[in-house]
């Protein structure tokens, strides 16, 4: 059985949480005791007839009080065909960084648009973030179709507008489904009222959509997380480099290069689950043994010697600023790419990305919370990287404020 990770985003009140609630409810993924609690809460909140399905995902007291989603909620359900992990992300502009968190690891974006309002500033922001994160597939759910009398023209107009807007974002695939989450039309059950729509329901879509499990990159990349050295009598010389394969395949006997060391050697042995294997693939946690005793440590990158990777301490990237405090010139930062870290500074803000036009605007002023910027970063040590569009694993990084330890930005290397 395969795993599909997706996230949902939309405007405040577009009905995201309700849609997920509906998906879980109609696919019978909610336990009776949780349903019972929900019915009680819905009644006390003044929902007389229907239960308020949004209460399923709004897990924090503050969220229930304010009736909005503040942080990502993860929900899980399984059908006969697939296991799903849903990241329900906040719509509110001030929680965009939480949306970034929920979206980063997924294969599919579901963006809700209120049929009455069409594309809004938030739709654009969420789509631009989806594009920036290079998520291969967007599904637009045009919600609240009941409030526009299930009219086909409304749906078609939104579809047209959206495709025009999204064109420069470079999303590989965009799909559209008209739904009413509140009543359940086209969520799990096919809507009788939207009879002009010939496509699948959301549920069928999720069960059957092709999972584009990356890697656009065929290059092989491995990064050391931890060095295993038992130092016991019988394993005196054992020195294994533990980590997960970021992309591609590694085989016993491969000639490899190690960065930032810039040395070459051979893979002597690969271990997986305590057993020796001949080869291992992207995503698998393994232990690599090398023929030569070199200074390899946490954060070292390993790749086949006949492939290349960029090694530089000058990096151009798009970042999303995530700290409440705006960026200060000269701020001391830590650059972290998987297990590699280095001190870093933002040398130059090249421009801010306009979320309406997706254009980079040269601008004065500081980088504020939730803003997307093109920047020039300088690191203390050379980083081994690929462009993010090429490899989502080696082209992604975070920036940490050295003083507060907070994660202040997420970035993709251009």
């Amino acid at each position, binding site marked *: 059985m395969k795993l599909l990770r997706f996230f949902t985003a939309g405007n405040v009140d577009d009905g995201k949480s309700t849609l997920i609630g509906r998906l879980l409810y109609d696919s019978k993924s909610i336990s009776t*005791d949780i349903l019972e609690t929900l019915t009680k809460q819905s009644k006390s909140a003044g929902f007389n007839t229907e239960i308020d399905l949004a209460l399923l995902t709004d*897990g924090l007291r503050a969220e229930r009080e304010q009736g909005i989603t503040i942080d990502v909620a993860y929900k899980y359900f399984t059908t006969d065909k697939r296991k799903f992990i849903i990241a329900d992300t906040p719509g509110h502009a001030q929680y965009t960084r939480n949306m970034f968190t929920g979206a*980063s690891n997924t294969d599919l974006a579901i963006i809700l648009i209120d049929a009455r309002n069409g594309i809004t500033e938030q739709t654009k922001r969420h789509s631009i973030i989806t594009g920036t994160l290079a998520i291969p597939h967007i599904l637009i759910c045009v919600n609240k179709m009941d409030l526009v009398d299930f009219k086909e023209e409304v749906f078609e107009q939104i579809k047209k507008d959206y495709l025009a807007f999204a064109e420069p974002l470079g999303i590989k695939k965009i799909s559209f489904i008209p739904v009413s989450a509140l009543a359940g039309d086209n969520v799990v059950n096919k809507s009788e009222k939207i009879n002009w729509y010939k496509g699948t329901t959301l549920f069928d879509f999720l069960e059957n959509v092709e999972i584009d499990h990356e890697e656009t990159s065929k290059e092989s990349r491995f990064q050391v997380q931890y060095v*295993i050295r038992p130092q016991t009598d019988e394993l005196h010389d054992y020195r294994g480099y533990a980590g997960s394969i970021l992309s591609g395949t590694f085989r016993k006997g491969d000639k490899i290069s190690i960065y930032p060391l810039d040395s070459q050697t051979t893979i002597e042995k690969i271990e997986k689950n305590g057993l020796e294997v001949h080869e291992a693939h992207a995503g698998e946690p393994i232990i690599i043994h090398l023929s030569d005793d070199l200074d390899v440590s946490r954060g070292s990158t390993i790749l086949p010697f006949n492939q290349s990777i960029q090694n530089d301490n000058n990096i151009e990237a798009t970042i999303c600023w995530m700290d409440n405090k705006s960026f200060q010139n000269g701020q001391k930062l830590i650059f972290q790419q998987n297990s590699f870290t280095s001190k870093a500074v933002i040398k130059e803000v090249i421009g801010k990305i306009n979320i309406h036009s997706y254009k980079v605007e040269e601008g004065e002023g500081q980088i504020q919370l939730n803003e997307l910027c093109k920047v020039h970063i300088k690191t203390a040590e050379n980083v081994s990287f690929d462009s993010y569009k090429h490899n989502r*694993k080696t082209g*992604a990084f975070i920036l940490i404020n050295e003083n507060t330890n907070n*994660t202040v930005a*997420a970035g993709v290397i251009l």
Partner: protein
Amino acid sequence: MDYLDQLEAEAIYILREVAGQFDRPALLFSGGKDSICLVHLALKAFRPGKFPFPLVHVDTGHNFQEVLNYRDQIVSEIGEKLIIRKVEDTIIQRNLQDGKGKFPSRNVLQTYTLLDVIEEFEFDACIGGARRDEEKARAKERIFSVRDEFGQWDPKKQRPEIWDIYNGRVDKGENVRVFPISNWTELDVWNYIKREKIELPSIYFTHKRDCLITENGQLMNINQFIQLDENDTIVTRNVRYRTVGDMTCTAAVESVASSVDEIIDEITETKISERGATRMDDRASEAAMEDRKKNGYF
């Protein structure tokens, strides 16, 4: 990769990040199925090396004997270090009020012991077996969950956690709770136990037990800690445990499932959630878990 392979790979990756990032990590081990899976995953992550952390058991004193036996057996099998700290001792040292009432749970009190043991050994990371599908406040928590020096979780100040790049930087005195199986459901855990042929304490499987029936119809084990009244209804049933915790607040479920396969069938069919079926502590209020976490609970 199959979904269980993906979940396993994610957990091993996280365990190795803990080993790479922290000076003094620990693995919280209760003898329950989730922490048993963590130990199994740690074996995969670090063998043939030693674990880069000790196991820590916060002993409520309200344990099932079968679970304690299992704990001691597995620790001797794998040859790793186990640190035990008892809630009983914390109560005496800190002059605390023990749990009261008919079911005198030490669920709240164990937080004191946990925070004390963190301070004693200066742990900077504690690995736990919590899962996001268990409870809706947990569904909101990060995999690396930063706690302040009082052990408190602040849901409004969670660090963004992007891709699988984990930022475990904390100041002295603060610590990070790490949840490698955050994305696993109860069913995933059982399917994994089946696939990996992991041994479990016997109380997870059907057995005959004398139980008291509570007002909510839950089946509570009869033990020296709970108060029995004259009009209590006591029955003998075929039961098993879905979760293993403080004996005074963990209920059994009626079941004749005697194998992992039968348990998987049962969970697939059942309509009641894991915590809903077994935990009295979560029934206290809508935000019971959120509040406990804010106070340092794991």
